[in-house]
């Protein structure tokens, strides 16, 4: 059984203007040990796909109009809120794109780490080496120790001292490591990372990529890595899915898709990467003629499928 199996997922978002279809039939399967890069157009639905997996979209605005999401065989869209709470931060770790939902500026790093650990330990006390019958104090102490150990293993020196600090006292790279640690403290089977290195310089970025790579090597987890950086995908991912306007237009092993892209949109993306090693005359963005050809290719594929 696949760790994550999304099939024909349709999602509409409601606003006062009415309902807009956002995801138009997403199929994606993530096995353990795989790192899926999800790339694609701004606004194509990458983040909403990620948020759907842990069902974090408010049901006042999000309406699932078709398809299903299976996590380890469990039907996520039809699971109760209690089950979902256990999955989030437990078996599914998330790093959000929206920085404001990530770290609360008014609480110490340690407080936030310990809360995340205790939350995850409610269903899986073993992650803190507990049986579930310990006192509150013992649980907190275990959560504290596990947090320190995890931060240290992520290369954050003096973690014990750092736990007493507030987010603004950390550099961007340090904060990002804390976020990954928070997502990993529950020892999830699936990590969903939405643009985790976008704000970072290339040196810190490469540290973070090594870190995620190591986690997959050591724990055989599955990863969904949402990014705009095709260099990062080439560096880290085993597979890649390319999204355009609510659809996955191309998918496959990185060695295939990035070496010999088949879809016109994937090629457009590859052609738009600026390189630091040579002077480029003009990068091609997506102009209307190109957009028409992309739409035509998508329409043609859709016809083949229905035929």
């Amino acid at each position: 059984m696949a760790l994550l199996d999304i099939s024909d997922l349709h999602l509409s978002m409601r606003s006062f203007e009415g309902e807009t279809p956002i995801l138009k039939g997403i199929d994606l399967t993530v096995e353990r040990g795989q790192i899926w890069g999800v790339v694609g157009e701004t606004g194509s639905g990458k983040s909403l796909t990620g948020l759907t997996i842990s069902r974090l979209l408010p049901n006042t605005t999000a309406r699932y109009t078709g398809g299903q999401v299976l996590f380890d065989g469990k039907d996520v869209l039809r699971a109760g809120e209690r089950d979902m709470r256990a999955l989030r931060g437990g078996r599914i770790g998330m790093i959000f794109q929206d920085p404001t939902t990530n770290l609360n500026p008014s609480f110490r790093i340690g407080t936030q780490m310990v809360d995340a650990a205790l939350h995850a330990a409610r269903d899986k006390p073993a992650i803190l080496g507990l049986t579930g019958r310990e006192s509150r104090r013992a649980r907190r102490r275990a959560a504290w120790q596990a947090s320190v150990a995890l931060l240290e293993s992520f290369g954050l020196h003096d973690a014990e001292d750092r736990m007493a600090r507030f987010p603004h006292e950390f550099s961007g790279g340090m904060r990002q490591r804390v976020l990954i640690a928070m997502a990993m403290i529950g020892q999830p089977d699936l990590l969903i990372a939405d643009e985790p290195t976008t704000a970072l310089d290339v040196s810190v970025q490469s540290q973070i990529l090594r870190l995620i790579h190591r986690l997959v090597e050591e724990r055989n987890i599955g990863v969904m890595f949402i990014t705009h950086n095709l260099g990062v995908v080439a560096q880290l991912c085993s597979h890649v899915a390319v999204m355009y306007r609510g659809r996955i237009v191309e998918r496959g092993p990185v060695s295939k898709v990035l070496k010999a892209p088949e879809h016109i949109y994937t090629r457009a993306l590859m052609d738009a990467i600026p390189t630091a090693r040579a002077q480029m005359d003009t990068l091609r963005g997506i102009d209307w003629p190109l957009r028409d050809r992309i739409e035509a290719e998508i329409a043609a594929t859709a016809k083949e499928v229905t035929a």
Partner: protein
Amino acid sequence: MSKPLLKIEGLGHVYGARRGLFGTSPAFRALTGIDISVARGESFGLVGESGSGKTTLTRNILGLERPSEGHVLFDGHPVIDLGRGGERRLRRRMQIVFQDPQASLDPRMTIHDTIAEALVIHGPDLGIARSGYTRRVLDLLEAVGLGREHLYRHPHEFSGGQRQRINIARALAVEPELLILDEPTSALDVSVQADILNLLQRLQKELGLTYFFISHDLGVIRYTCDRVAVIERGRIVEQGPVAKIFDTPSQDYTRKLMDAIPDPDPDLSPLRRLA
């Protein structure tokens, strides 16, 4: 040579020692001896690791921080101690686009109002009447690839990348001369990034804009900038024409930055897991 639009001379910045809740934080020297001169119509790039002092430098350029040493001149005039009217006029001539589109848009305001707000403040200086605001907002949205249908939406209804386009439209609304761009495209997909970079180039030609461009993406800097400065722990370690600095870096630090760029060719990527 004509007078530079932006001139930074011997700039140093020390964050003062502060007594906080948890003891005293010692004084911290963030910038030392910065000399940069940017000509009108030029694109100047700034690259360096996280924490190297890039934001501190832009805050000094904008006159939001008082330099500890040296000074910043915009069009020959200091950027601090201007009085209220002077400050407003300077604000219009220098705009900044931040990296984080989330934090810089008011969630309660429609896109129309967000952009028109800038026009309300600076409209008189620009000679744009109130009745012309909506037309101008529409033109700006079109310039950044958004349409009439987005006019009365709120920020949460846009994706991260769409929000960044709104930010750029807002900065351009007041027709600035110097645009400081702090990671303006890092939230965008590479095609939209290319669109925005091309848009910035076109606007530069048409309007004679000057750019001060900060990015972690050295490819973006190479594509956009004429010259670049590399900053390491608050000091400029080298500066010059982009092609020269990136093709034949004289500093190990610059080489390290170049080497850390992940290449989109999967064959050149040792970390990658095999499918």
